[in-house]
């Protein structure tokens, strides 16, 4: 059997068996609705509230009811953007998002832009970070909300959230961060970061898909998005996913417990990957190479002279799962908006490769990728009618 190497942990992670075990009783014998008054319901409610307290403790929330369980990162982002902007019936104002947010933030921001709000997109610097000075310059008297992601999902750069939140508060606005890629991977402390709201996803931390959390600082007004039975302190109606939320809390605790050993392990694997890939593949570049801080598990490369989807399919045939920011892989006209926002030329963005590592990644997986990538790149470059021209241009810019 040929080796398979899953190197797309930023896309999703397998559910840890310990998480599955914690969840299982809540599908069957403890199936009660957490809102029912009888014993079966109370048992579910206790387990749900216990999960809420565990999440609150992990991120240093002031109170458990600052934790709102959702169906995932996308719902948390949509709720935060639209719910905070339109809180109290507000129908106009200014919001600021970074240009390289996930589409779960960009799309609701654009929706607000069509429904009475003005939207400013902050361009990150080529080092892959949003600078507080740029944010300060973009803030206006009528700015109501700023949303900047904590760790970028494609290039792995970490944003100076504490500084950005402080600048935002000085300007009298609320600050939200999408922390789907950072929760559990690096320290995440809402009090230290000073954010008003933060979005998290269960399936990025070895928890189940369809689970997520919105942290909302106590006293922050939010217009409700899902209306009905008034669950989650009337902020998110719908019968709670008790098993899933227990899975989320368990997964997060495992991340916290293992991080002291796991973060340096992944950082070392990533650094080895970067140095060997750049050494092995001619003209390859690390995107946002100048980033002051990056996540331990994500590296994004440009491989000039190849198209990303073709590279991905050949690697898949070799048993390797990775991602690309090429337009063809997304079915859209343009390649990755993240790479374009940090100044990556369009033709190179078509040939990007994202490698993301996780709990089950070993040195052998890195060897497998490096060993398989070189012949794939060589083959695709040999089929590229413009490759010599590309090389000449690269040589020109490097002189």
């Amino acid at each position, binding site marked *: 059997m040929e080796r398979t190497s899953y190197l797309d942990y930023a896309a999703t992670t397998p559910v840890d068996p310990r998480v599955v075990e914690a969840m299982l009783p809540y599908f069957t014998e403890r199936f009660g609705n957490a809102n029912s008054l009888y014993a079966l319901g109370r048992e579910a409610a206790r387990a749900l509230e216990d999960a809420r307290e565990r999440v609150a403790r992990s991120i240093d929330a002031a109170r458990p009811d600052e934790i709102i369980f959702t169906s995932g990162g996308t719902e948390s982002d949509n709720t935060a953007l639209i719910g905070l902007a339109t809180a109290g019936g507000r129908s106009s104002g200014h919001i600021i998002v970074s240009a390289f947010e996930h589409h779960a933030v960009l799309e609701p921001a654009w929706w607000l832009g069509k429904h009475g709000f003005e939207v400013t997109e902050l361009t990150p610097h080529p080092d892959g970070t949003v600078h507080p000075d740029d944010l300060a310059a973009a803030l206006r008297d009528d700015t109501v909300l700023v949303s900047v992601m904590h760790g970028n999902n494609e290039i792995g750069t970490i944003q100076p959230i504490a500084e950005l939140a402080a600048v935002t508060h000085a300007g009298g606005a609320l600050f939200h961060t999408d922390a789907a890629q950072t929760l559990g991977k690096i320290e995440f402390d809402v009090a230290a970061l000073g954010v008003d709201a933060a979005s998290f996803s269960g399936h990025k931390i070895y928890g189940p898909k369809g689970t997520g959390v919105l942290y909302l600082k106590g006293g922050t007004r939010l217009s409700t998005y899902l209306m009905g039975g008034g669950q989650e302190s009337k902020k998110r109606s719908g019968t709670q996913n008790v098993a899933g939320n227990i899975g989320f809390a368990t997964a997060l605790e495992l991340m916290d417990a293992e991080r002291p050993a796991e973060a340096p392990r992944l950082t070392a694997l990533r650094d080895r990957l970067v140095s060997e890939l750049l050494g092995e593949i001619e003209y390859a570049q690390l995107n946002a190479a100048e980033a002051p801080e990056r996540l331990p598990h994500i590296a994004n490369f440009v491989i000039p002279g190849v198209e990303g989807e073709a590279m991905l399919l050949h690697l898949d045939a070799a048993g390797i799962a990775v991602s690309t920011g090429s337009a063809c892989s997304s*079915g859209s006209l343009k390649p990755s908006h993240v790479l374009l926002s940090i100044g990556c030329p369009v033709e190179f963005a078509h040939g990007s490769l994202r490698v993301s590592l996780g709990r089950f990644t070993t040195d052998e997986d890195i060897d497998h990728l490096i060993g398989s990538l070189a012949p794939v790149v060589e083959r695709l470059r040999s089929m*590229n009618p413009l490759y010599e021209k590309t090389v000449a241009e690269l040589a020109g810019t490097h002189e």
Partner: protein
Amino acid sequence: MIYSDKVMDHFGNPRNVGVLEDADGTGEVGNPVCGDVMKITIKVDDDRIGDIRFQTLGCGAAIATSSIVTEMAKGMTLAEAVAITKSQVAEELGGLPPAKMHCSVLATDGLKKAVDDYLVSQGREPIAVGTIAHDDPDFDPHAEEHDEACEV
């Protein structure tokens, strides 16, 4: 989006890859900014495609459509070759995902350009000019996708 087995076959084992050194006609279409570029070279014998090679920078569908077009065109008369349509290319591959239909235009346009290049070099009238989508400055290879994803 899932590729047919035939697309994966032509992507993984593309036919007629390369450049004919003493080509009678050359066609090059596409743009690296759009993510796909194709170059096709042909040898012409008695107004038929005697030999053909391609090079393509592009996604799986771009490479597969290029490959199959060279197979389809080999042995055809020049008139038959320029009449190959994008739908025929897609059909020959057992279908293409909707978002990839434009890739077959790259392949048919490349072939048309190579045929016209040959004819012009012989002092003859080009026969494909006017039917080459990539010659239109307003050509949008993704137009059909916009239609499908039309905004609500």
